[in-house]
């Protein structure tokens, strides 16, 4: 192999004029984190609603939930990204569409919406599985206590379901974090995009990608540690 390693590259100024290559990657890292967190807010909220819809006795609610999940699960994320970014502004009313296109940081908002709606379909499946894994008696006990359906979900079913599905939700969160890299195709300057442009400017391919890889691994470890801590904090004392 005749590849010339140069680990000092991170200290060299980047062609952007301000900061070093290391700063460039770290700025990418912060966009990755910002996108992942913002889209998770949508994914978790919407996913919970859709998941609950799929467990309600109402047939219409079920149909809506199922349609949502099937629609968002069966179209590749990249295609969804293009639909939000290129297609949506065109089919909005002309004035609104132009306003959307001129939005500063448009790739960021698009990526957040796209990932939020995409991951919501996965969160919904977990929430549904969590609620369905609870013994039937819990719902009945809620009804017997005179709870309305909403109260049964709020006070009985969801607190239990969320605790059960915390591990799969963690991996959905990690998937969402990794999926932010797909947004580089619409111009979001997240970590992978930054590593890629560092490679293009400096020709130090492997240093750039090694650094990005390590940053992703650290992010993963932090999330897993956080999830473990959360799991311990919310565990029901004396529970399983």
């Amino acid at each position, binding site marked *: 192999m005749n590849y010339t390693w140069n680990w000092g590259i991170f200290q060299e100024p980047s062609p952007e004029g301000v900061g070093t290559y290391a700063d460039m990657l770290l700025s990418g890292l912060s966009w990755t984190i910002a996108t992942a967190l913002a889209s998770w807010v949508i994914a978790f909220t919407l996913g919970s609603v859709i998941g609950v819809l799929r467990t309600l006795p109402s047939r219409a609610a079920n149909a809506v939930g199922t349609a949502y999940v099937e629609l968002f699960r069966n179209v590749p994320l990249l295609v969804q990204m*293009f639909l939000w970014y*290129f*297609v949506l502004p065109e089919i909005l009313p002309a004035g609104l569409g132009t306003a959307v296109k001129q939005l500063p940081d448009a790739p960021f908002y698009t990526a957040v919406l796209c990932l939020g709606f995409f991951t919501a379909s996965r969160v919904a499946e977990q929430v549904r599985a969590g609620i369905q894994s609870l013994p039937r008696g819990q719902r009945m006990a809620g009804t017997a206590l005179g709870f309305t359906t909403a109260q049964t979900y709020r006070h009985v079913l969801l607190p239990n379901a969320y605790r059960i599905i915390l591990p799969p939700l963690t991996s959905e969160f990690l998937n969402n974090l990794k999926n932010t890299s797909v947004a580089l*195709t619409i111009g979001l300057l997240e970590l992978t995009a930054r590593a890629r442009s560092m*490679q293009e400017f400096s020709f130090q391919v492997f240093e750039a990608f090694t650094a990005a890889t390590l940053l992703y691994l650290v992010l993963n470890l932090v999330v897993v540690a956080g999830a473990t801590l959360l799991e311990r904090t919310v565990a029901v004392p004396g529970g399983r």
Partner: protein
Amino acid sequence: MFAHFDFSVIGASLPYLFGQGMVFTVTLTALAATGGIVFGTALAMMRLSGIPGVTHAAKVYVELMRSLPLVLVIFWFYFLVPYIGAWATGSATPIQVGAFSSALITFTLFEAAYFAEIMRAGIQSIPKGQTAAASALGMSYAQTMRLVVLPQAFRNMLPLLLTQTIVLFQDTSLVYVLSLTDFLGAASKVAQRDGRLVEMYLFAALVYFAVCFTASLLVRRLQTRVAIIR
């Protein structure tokens, strides 16, 4: 809202979209799924082998692949494979690897990590008594795996393996970052040439949805038929 749409652009580009794009996507999916399942099964067996170094190596590989974004892995291999090739063949300069081979290697190695986890669960789902019975019959480890454990593990895990293949089918659209002409790449090229982004991307979404939705319905039907009744 559809007044300005020009759907004729879709009709005119159908031979290109399916003749080149979809053929590429399906070929890549089929080859990578086959390679991924073979390598993934090997990884699962390594991970369950109980041999200290081997178990650990397989675990590190699977965890590493699963914690990285596919896009980053695609870039890694795109630049790394020519160097590995040069090292393997003893060549002084990085060898030329076509973008297709590079993508195929990437998807095979990446998906193998996911297939490995499925196969691991499949192998672990076989009761211990069966391997014990196989040893009692005098079967070697290889024979036990080939004749007793793996056939059942594959059968139990078939729905999951197929679902993962549908995911792979969707993921192959990411070769877009290497400017390859898969189905989405073909749609995107036509879209940009004719300035018809809306029509082409909506059509691509529709085709992906139709294929994946039908496939997942078939998997669900299969699931009820192949389930081993205990």
